[in-house]
């Protein structure tokens, strides 16, 4: 008969109350683990999405992140092909690399000039084959299907645009897009009355005409300023219009093959890129890879910097921060519930067993022994409750994962699996149980002190 056994028997003494206490603790642990598991899954899903889109590290000219968009020429990397080769062939990096690929950011005006419509765009020129590999990254082994990449390696003029941009350029009919919004007709109230001939003209220009098709493909003109300031125009065939999760992006985004983008920015001059994207096979290699890349870059003497995806894509940390805050809030609430329910249970146990306390004290049990008895009961409630809650959470998580629910995180269009990865972070289960036991001990402490401080003779009167 050891202390735990005794504590357990005392817990069973008032089954209804103990069950309620265990239920409160269990539900708390259940919620923490289930939500924590979901957060772990979501973070891993977002991580995968982020790494697919932006890689782990990007090499850029110093200042490109802040000023590059407006000065693509000045903040470009010119000898990028040599650098890409150097990285790909580096003894240390080579086995760790998934993709090393150059990209070029470009912005300007996209026009469906046949219809007289144009809109600002923000584009990214990529190597389609590399892009395809990047979008298939699954370094966390989530089994997430590769993200679709509509660019084709053998189509130098084919690009993809945001669904919103397609709408702005009046391309919906031509691209046979079904879910486009209809532009509301201009009403008299909105505009000053026009002479009938002008009104007729306006009607003509406002109603989008299908753009001219080349080889049966829908094309748009892209206009950007070259480093020297002269405008360059290229024609891009629209392979697809893809909905983006953020409206601002949806209205401006264009993805196009790197040579086409380079032609637009540099014309006949030496082509360059904005950034060299490095995607690693394993997340854990990020820091050593950064160090190695910095060495290589420094050897080249160019004023380049190596930025990680946290810097490139700040929403990643913001979303994680938000989930972290919600998780901590839930954990705090559940801790308070556990704290109070254990305190209440132990407090009532002390009140019911005053005579027993007096007896034990008379028999020679010291105050610390009395405290230990009740703290052990509290700790056992915490242990059993949190383990029961954990088991229930693991069971439900397993079920959810088997059923395969998906959701679309903020700012994304691709749905990701709503996994609940309760084993993803080993701290989740261990800490939940450990912290619950700790909290239970803390809440049992005050009532146990009350028990230990009782006057023996007074306590014995209750026997």
């Amino acid at each position, binding site marked *: 008969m050891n202390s735990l056994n*005794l504590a357990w*028997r005392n817990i069973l*003494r008032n089954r209804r109350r103990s069950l309620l206490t265990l239920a409160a603790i269990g539900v708390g642990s259940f919620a923490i683990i289930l939500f924590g598991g979901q957060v772990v899954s979501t973070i891993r899903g977002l991580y995968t999405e982020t790494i697919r889109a932006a890689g782990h590290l990007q090499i850029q000219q110093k200042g490109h992140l802040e000023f590059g968009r407006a000065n693509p020429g000045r903040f470009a990397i010119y000898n990028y092909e040599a650098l890409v080769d150097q990285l790909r062939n580096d003894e240390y990096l080579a086995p760790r690399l998934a993709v090393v690929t150059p990209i070029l950011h470009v912005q300007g005006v996209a026009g469906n000039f046949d219809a007289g419509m144009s809109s600002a765009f923000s584009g990214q020129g990529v190597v389609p084959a590399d892009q395809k590999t990047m979008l298939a990254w699954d370094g966390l082994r989530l089994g997430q299907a590769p993200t679709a990449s509509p660019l084709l390696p053998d189509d130098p003029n084919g690009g993809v645009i945001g669904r919103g941009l397609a709408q702005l350029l009046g391309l919906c009919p031509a691209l046979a897009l079904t879910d486009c919004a209809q532009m509301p007709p201009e009403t008299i109230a909105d505009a000053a009355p026009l002479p009938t001939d002008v009104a007729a003209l306006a009607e003509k220009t406002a109603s989008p005409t299908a753009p001219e098709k080349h080889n049966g493909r829908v094309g748009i003109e892209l206009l950007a300023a070259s480093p020297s300031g002269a405008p360059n125009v290229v024609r891009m065939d629209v392979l697809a219009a893809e909905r983006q999760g953020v409206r601002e992006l949806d209205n401006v985004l264009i993805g196009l093959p790197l040579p086409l983008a380079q032609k637009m920015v540099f014309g006949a001059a030496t082509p360059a890129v904005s950034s060299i994207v490095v995607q690693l096979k394993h997340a854990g290699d990020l820091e050593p890879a950064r160090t190695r890349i910095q060495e290589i870059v420094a050897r080249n003497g160019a004023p380049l910097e190596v930025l990680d995806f946290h810097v490139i894509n700040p929403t990643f940390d913001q979303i994680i921060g938000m989930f972290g805050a919600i998780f901590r809030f839930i954990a705090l609430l559940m801790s308070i519930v556990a704290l109070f329910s254990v305190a209440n249970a132990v407090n009532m146990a002390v009140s019911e067993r005053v005579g027993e306390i007096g007896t034990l004290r*008379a*028999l*020679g*049990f010291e105050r610390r022994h009395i405290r230990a008895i009740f703290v052990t009961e509290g700790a056992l409630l915490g242990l059993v409750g949190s383990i029961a809650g954990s088991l229930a959470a693991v069971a439900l998580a397993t079920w959810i994962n088997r059923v395969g629910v998906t959701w679309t995180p903020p700012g994304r269009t691709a749905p990701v699996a709503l996994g609940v990865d309760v084993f993803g972070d080993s701290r989740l289960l261990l800490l939940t149980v450990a912290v619950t036991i700790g909290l239970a001990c803390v809440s049992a402490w005050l009532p146990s002190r009350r028990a230990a401080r009782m006057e*023996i003779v007074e306590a*014995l009167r209750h026997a």
Partner: protein
Amino acid sequence: MVSATATPAAQLRGIHKHYRLGEVDVPALCGIDLDLPRGVFSVIGGPSGSGKSTLLNLLGCIDAPDAGSVDVDGQAVAALGDTQRTRFRARHVGFVFQNFNLIPVLTAIENVEYPLRLLEDNAPRRRDMARSALIEVGLEGLEDRLPSALSGGQRQRVAVARALAKRPALVLADEPTANLDQATGRGLIDLMRRIQSATGATFVFSSHDPQLIAEADLRVHLVDGRVTAIDTRGGNA
């Protein structure tokens, strides 16, 4: 009958004890001087409210007097701190309570064994001590019963076994028969008496039942917190 050199089992000098009941002072003991000789089966007799329990609590080192000194087994109790006093009780004093005070979730043998862990680290040895104490009080075969499955007399015998298992110098029993019927109560006193002769420990019980009081070797009569008479079997002390 007590040699001058032997320390008494307990010695009370000038004991005063009163309780406060709201605004009222309730005197419980008013100037008690008493020597309890070793190895004697004694009784504190007296009507209800005469101070028997208060006196036994002082002897058992679970309460302190307002004035006067209590020595148990040659130890001045007042000189001990709370923890020391608790350890002193664990080793030297056995208690039998009016309401048996068994731990309800522990079986008979576990109830006897449980306090032994304060003195004996070896679990099998504890078990043996508990088992032989239960045999001593005639409860062989009932070791694994919970208190709720025992009769009142059996429960009180478990309590006696619990008090005796550690072989204390002093065994105190405050009205141990008050919750037992006449015959069972008498049986219990006979049992305690037998064990006392066998072990030579000092037994003190309290009672207001003249028949049971007559069983003791040394009888201390209390009335209103004062000792009115001390007599021994076959003569006065």
